[in-house]
């Protein structure tokens, strides 16, 4: 399993670098602070499930940024320096190389998320909160998946271009479009449809589905679904039925496309 060798090397590289370490400490701090203030400013009942819905807003900005930061240098930096020639002179396939880089980097982020969530869980539960173990586990897994999605988008950008600067630009453009532009455009479309007097029907449905197709909305929807007990409320596209495949698609889609492209291109 040579991807493990690659993942292990990237895990170590990331932990040795200063900026990723600062980002990881920042992530753990943000989650911990959110958990500290949630029992104070949140509404009853105070539970680990409802904490998820509280913290998504805090994570919405920080996880994509850290994920992209971790991912964008995975391939392009070594392509530009020439170290990629050394990496590929070993008996690794190109797909294995990209996959190993993704696993190593996403693994570091996942470990930080788990640590942060463990601290947060303790802060929420002590002294008056309630632990919902399975839903809390699901919250941790969803947060790891969301973080890994953005690492994957960063790694994909890195595998598609040849210089570190190009990878950074592509990853930041993806971040900007998916986090800011997507919401703004779909909100504008929604407002336009309402202003036109279209309150239901296929056009409204398409607009509302469109608003759920970015990774952040899918993550929010899934985490919110963990906190509510009445799952019959709302349209199907406002719930996990759409959000789960959307998040899985963003987790594996960009990375798979980038691997296909990277696998067959000339690296001279």
């Amino acid at each position, binding site marked *: 399993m040579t991807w493990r060798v690659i993942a292990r090397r990237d895990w170590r590289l990331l932990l040795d670098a200063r900026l990723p370490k600062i980002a990881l400490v920042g992530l753990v701090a943000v989650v911990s602070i959110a958990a500290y203030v949630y029992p104070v400013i949140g509404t009853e009942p105070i539970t680990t499930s409802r904490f998820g819905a509280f913290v998504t807003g805090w994570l919405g900005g920080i996880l994509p940024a850290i994920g992209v930061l971790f991912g964008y240098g995975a391939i392009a930096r070594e392509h530009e320096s020439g170290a990629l020639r*050394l990496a590929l002179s070993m008996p690794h396939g190109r797909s294995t190389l990209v996959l190993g880089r993704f696993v190593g980097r996403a693994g570091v982020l996942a470990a930080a998320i788990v640590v942060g969530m463990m601290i947060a869980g303790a802060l929420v539960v002590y002294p008056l909160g309630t632990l919902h173990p399975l839903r809390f586990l699901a919250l941790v897994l969803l947060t790891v998946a969301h973080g890994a999605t953005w690492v994957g988008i960063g790694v994909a950008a890195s595998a598609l271009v040849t210089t570190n600067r190009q990878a950074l630009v592509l990853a930041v453009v993806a971040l900007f479009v998916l986090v800011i532009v997507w919401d703004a455009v779909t909100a504008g479309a929604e407002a336009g449809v309402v202003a036109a007097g279209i309150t239901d029907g296929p056009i409204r449905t398409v607009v509302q589905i469109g608003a759920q197709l970015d990774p952040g909305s899918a993550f929010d929807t899934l985490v919110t679904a963990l906190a509510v007990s009445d799952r019959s409320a709302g349209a199907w596209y406002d719930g996990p039925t759409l959000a789960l495949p959307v998040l899985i698609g963003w987790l594996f889609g960009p990375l798979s496309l980038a691997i296909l492209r990277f696998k067959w291109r000339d690296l*001279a």
Partner: protein
Amino acid sequence: MTVISATNLSKRYDDVLALDRVDLNVEAGETFGFLGPNGAGKSTFIDILLGFVAPSDGTMSVFGHDCQDDGVAVRERVGVLPEGYAPFDGLSGRQHVEYAIRSKDVDENPVDVLSRVGLRDDAARPATDYSKGMRQRLALAMALVGEPDLLVLDEPTTGLDPNGAAEMRTILREETDRGATIFFSSHVLEQVEAVCDRVGILQNGRLIATDTISGLRDAIGGGTKLVITPAAVDDDALDAVRRIDGVETAVERDGAIEATCTNDAKMDALVELHDAGVEVVNFRTEEASLEDMFVEFTGGARA
């Protein structure tokens, strides 16, 4: 047993034909030198061998594995010193070798490998701080991990001082002694001549000669170099020598006429100069060096 087999191999980059219908076989246990001027296509050939680029036409296989479709199987048996590589950021020399050991799934002591290439005392330093020569040694160390059946070395002596180049030659001899095949690309003709059993000369993407060094010597008419020191060298004297049957090349160098020719033509050249009124002060004969043969084959291009 054929180790490297290239058949009708071509590679085109836009309007540049980097390789043009190259056919080449390298047999097990031999040390093969790949020669050519800059831009001749040597690195393109090696890039295809390593799966870095795909050929536009033709095929290449190593140990029977297609280099494009089965590149991992190829590299499991190949140690590579790639040209133009850089070390990994943040890893020491020792960590580089450890990475190679884990990647190749073998059990070796990284210190032993680094000692072999003279990097033991620098093992803990970040490899990005290494000099060019040290980087070459490090890449060689990574290539040697796992006792590969084939070593592919692209310009391996770049950046090495004469002692370093001699040490590398010693290591290559040790590798051939244990049965490894070596594919050695270089523009340093002395290095190739010192270690290679057979050489291929590439020019403008075409493989224009493949033979042993003595075979190449025979191919240019016996491979004798006649060095004549006349009282004065002029174009008429050079032309007189060039007109003789059996003379392949005649050039002026440091006040002497250097002619590559058959054994039979040597005396004819001296007689011709005498008849042309050129006073011959001295003359001697030498075996044609690889450089002489290279110039002969490539029509004057420099490696």
